[in-house]
């Protein structure tokens, strides 16, 4: 009995042990069997279905499969490309900005800013691009967002804002705006302590606020990194009376520009800058030589005009030193016109030239006629000849030349105005023609007081007093001290029965004439 009990107990124990150990296993096996059974069912079902598949469906389904595959490939490529977009757009934007292709640069920067919102540099460059496209408001708003006035933001933005303020203040000085510019510059200096641009802008600020002496150290620091600024420094020092330092600065500018030019003879900016420096250093021949070399290297470059400008500059120096007309002056003008026959500055100087001796006048006249025969600046030459003839009291000749000038270039409104005046005051006067000409001038410039005065005078001569009154009264605010205008108004009011007003204008004309004679 005991043995049986023991066996039962052992069996029970064994069963318990088996149950304990294998119970969970049975459960897992059961679940596994069910899962496998499920998969088997699906597989069985699929296999049964696939027995009835038709290969023609695969052929017909190929287009969808291929297009789906292509879409998948494109999607993967597009996804991969997204990781490189920022760099690619930055490169494209930079290249566009360098090439000054601002419309394209705007598109790329806008996209770049959308892709990389954190980058201040991208937003700054976008603002610069927008400013170049004329969207100044938005550019300023972006910069102000990057560089608030009350905190230190992006250095380049502070610098840009300071420059903008200085630019606007140049036209209309505004003390509070200049204070803001100073604040921006201070913050820019904190962020960009070694940037030459900051010092250069500081110097500009001090010059704008009339503190030239404070500008000098900043300009000196800027010039160390930007040697082309030595030229500006020379001007500044010269204006402060520090001539020796100015000379030294000019020499350093000269040396720097020479080095640059030696490295790249086609550097127009360096060559023109060097010519300016040499001119200011009194080395006129050196400047001419530099510019002549440039003209030889690049005949279609800006050097002919630069040579003419240098010669005119020299002419002014000589004219200031000489008390009377010097043959050298004519030669200088002749050379200037040879380099740039269309130089209006040279032609204008020709008008006043030769007021002295008959030989000088004749020489100037020949020079002008040579230009006319050569077909250079013909309308303007006619204008100059006509003006000179009028001053020489040769109205027929003046009329001829001015008419030619106006016929060749109707935009020469001063010419037309003079022509109309002459026609109205000729003997006999051609008032209708004069009125036609001055009407066409007023179509271009309807508010010009001089032209209104001319027409008013012509209408007075035509005895159309009511119309003349309109023009003369509109011209009056612009020419309050014109004696002829007041005399004409007096005539008009008298003819319109306004005696009192006529007398007042008479009195004014008299007083003004006396004052001008006294002067």
């Amino acid at each position, binding site marked *: 009995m005991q043995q049986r009990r023991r066996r039962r107990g052992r069996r029970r124990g064994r069963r318990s042990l088996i149950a304990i150990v294998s119970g969970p296993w049975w459960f897992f096996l059961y679940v596994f069997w069910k899962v496998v059974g499920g998969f088997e069912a699906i597989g069985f079902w699929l296999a049964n279905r696939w027995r009835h598949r038709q290969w023609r469906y*695969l052929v017909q389904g190929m287009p969808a499969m291929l297009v789906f595959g292509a879409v998948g490939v494109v999607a993967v490529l597009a996804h991969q*490309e997204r990781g490189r977009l920022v760099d690619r757009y930055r490169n494209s934007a930079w290249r566009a900005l360098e090439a000054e292709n601002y419309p394209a640069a705007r598109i790329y920067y806008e996209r770049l800013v959308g892709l990389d919102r954190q980058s201040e540099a991208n937003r700054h460059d976008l603002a610069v691009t927008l400013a170049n496209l004329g969207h100044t408001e*938005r550019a300023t708003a972006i910069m102000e967002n990057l560089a608030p006035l009350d905190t230190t933001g992006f250095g380049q933005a502070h610098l840009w804002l300071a420059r903008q303020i200085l630019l606007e203040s140049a036209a209309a000085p505004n003390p509070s705006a200049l204070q803001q510019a100073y604040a921006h510059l201070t913050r820019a200096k904190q962020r960009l302590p070694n940037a030459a641009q900051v010092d250069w802008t500081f110097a500009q600020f001090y010059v704008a606020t009339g503190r030239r002496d404070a500008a000098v150290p900043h300009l000196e620091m800027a010039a160390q990194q930007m040697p082309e600024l030595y030229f500006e420094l020379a001007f500044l020092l010269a204006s402060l009376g520090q001539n020796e330092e100015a000379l030294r600065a000019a020499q350093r500018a000269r040396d720097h520009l020479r080095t640059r030019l030696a490295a790249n003879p086609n550097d127009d900016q360096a060559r023109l800058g060097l010519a300016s420096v040499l001119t200011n250093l009194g080395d006129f021949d050196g400047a001419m030589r530099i510019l002549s070399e440039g003209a030889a290297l690049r005949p279609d470059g800006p050097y002919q005009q630069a040579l003419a400008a240098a010669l005119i500059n020299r002419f002014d120096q000589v004219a200031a030193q000489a008390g009377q007309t010097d043959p050298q002056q004519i030669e200088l003008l002749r050379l200037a016109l040879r380099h740039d026959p269309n130089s209006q500055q040279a032609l204008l100087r020709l008008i006043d030239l030769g007021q002295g001796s008959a030989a000088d006048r004749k020489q100037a006249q020949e020079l002008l006629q040579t230009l006319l025969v050569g077909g250079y600046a013909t309308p303007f030459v006619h204008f100059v000849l006509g003006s000179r003839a009028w001053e020489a009291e040769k109205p027929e000749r003046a009329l001829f030349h001015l008419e030619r000038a106006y016929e060749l270039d109707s935009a020469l409104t001063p010419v037309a105005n003079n022509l109309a005046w002459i026609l109205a005051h000729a003997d006999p006067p051609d008032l209708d023609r004069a009125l036609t000409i001055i009407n066409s001038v007023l179509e271009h410039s309807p508010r010009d007081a001089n032209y209104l005065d001319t027409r008013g005078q012509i209408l007075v001569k035509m005895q159309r007093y009511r119309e003349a009154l309109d023009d003369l009264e509109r011209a009056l605010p612009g020419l309050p001290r014109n004696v002829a205008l007041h005399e004409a108004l007096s005539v008009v009011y008298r003819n319109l029965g306004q005696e009192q007003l006529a007398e007042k204008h008479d009195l004014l004309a008299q007083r003004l004439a006396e004052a001008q004679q006294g002067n």
Partner: protein
Amino acid sequence: MASVTTLNTAGVLSSDRSEAFSRWMAAGVAVVVLAHLPMLIPLAARLWAAEHYQFFPLLLLGAGYLGYHRGREADVTRGGLWEWRLLMASLAAFLLASAAVMNSTWLAAIAVMASSWMLLYFFGGAGLLARVWPAWLILWLVVPLPLNMDRELILSMQHIATQWASGVLDAMRLRHLVSGVVIELPGHEFLIEEACSGIHSFFATMACTLFLLVLSHRGWFRWALLLAAAVFWVLVANTLRVIAIVVLGSRWNLPVTEGIGHELMGALVFLMAIGLVLSTDRLFLFLLPERRYDPLYEGRSKGRRSFFKRWFGRWIGGKSRQEAAVAGKYESKISASDRSTADAATADESIRSSVRKRRRPRTQPARWETLVLIVVFGVLGVAQLIPGALSMPQGRTAQDKFIEPMAAADMPEQMGDWRRVGYETVIRSPDDPQSYISYVWTYQKDGQRVRMSLEGPYLRWHNLVGCLRGGGWRTDQARHRAYEEIGESIPGGFTELILAKELQQNAFVIFAAFDSEHRPVIPTARLFGRLAPIKEALGRPDERLAADDSIKYQLVLFQECPLPLSEAQKDDARDLFHQVRRHLSGQAIAWVEIKDILKSVQQDRAM
């Protein structure tokens, strides 16, 4: 009702159709159809006005053919439950009445669908419904999406097409900028208009796909797969179209953005989408072949797996071709052995299922039921024809005409401190989401520049948020305000929006809608505006508000600024908006007075 039942060669109980459908039933159908006509005509006009719904005549023909083809073999003797008939008829009548009272073409469409379902069950019973419901389902494509959801769908599709195209253009290294639904390249700008959104091909492709699914007896799983595939292919095809237009237009300056080139691209896109849908269907057929009756397989599949397999198989494969043949199709395509096996199996199955399923007796509609139907719908139909019985009272409907053409001089050169500096007229396509016509005046003051525009015509208040989103604007704040808040005694209101774009681009917009007699509209966003006509029908309508069915225009002020506008700037803009509104209102009032005078003169002459 007497009916003759026979056992036909397919072993199915059928009826003698000529006696099953009596004259009373025919009258009932005719009355129900006629009752819907007054609402169907404006519905058809509305569908025709929207270019993406212009396929509806073809769809109606197709659904009609499908329904007729499938309905021929239906067992109409099965009848239905009278409770269901009553319930459906009540619902259909209620919907039709609501549509007439609220003058809603959308509700009219829902009423038509409910009535058609009701008629199918009423006179054909469950048997006819079981056969014809796919054709009925296809008709839902003609029901316009409610609450301007089709506009939202257009905008969403425009955005999807734009974003996908942008991704591909980046992969092609074509640098560009996306702003809303505008793709900008150096020297070129492409607006992804409604036509390029794919909305036209979307509805047409979905209709064709549904036809394919119904005709080919696919199962529910294939329905879901193929419809999803159709949506995908429409988006892909349209994205390809956008990419092609951008590349061809920017690189070779080909005229693909408008005219015949644009139309050809659209046709190609549609054909491509349809082709890919068909190809996808064949691919699915290869990967998941249709179920065929296999006795060996059926035998082995009994037991605990049989239910799962049968359910799963039916769900995937739909009806087997043999079962479809038993239902009256494809008999010629099945072998004789299959047929005999199938006939016996299916007949046995149908008897067992009918015994199993029938719990209550189904009946044909009694004469009194048909009579009630005729009376109810007859009254509804007649009521719609009597002016004022259901619709708005006479005299409130404004002239059905957009405002007179405007010119620069219609706005004063000086409006307070604002000076007019520009004017232009913009004419777009008639179903452009923004507007058909825009008259735009530009005003300037102290460096601020504002665009005042008059846009339309619209049928109702037009929410500008979607159009502005298409231009890349994000709405930071939207507020409806009543005119009474600003001290005016007129009803209605206007909406103010504060918008922003990427990086220092902000805008302030004010807009309000009016009819051509300058009566204001209450701004509505969604459903609640529709309650106004009900209130008007029940109580005294507000004569000062625009009629619900009148043509409307919208006055819009748009001011863009790099910085967020200050309150002072907003007040300036509000002043200008209300000055312009009052100016136009004055003109409109003068026009109405002139018309009244002319009318009285004509009457005097007649006397």
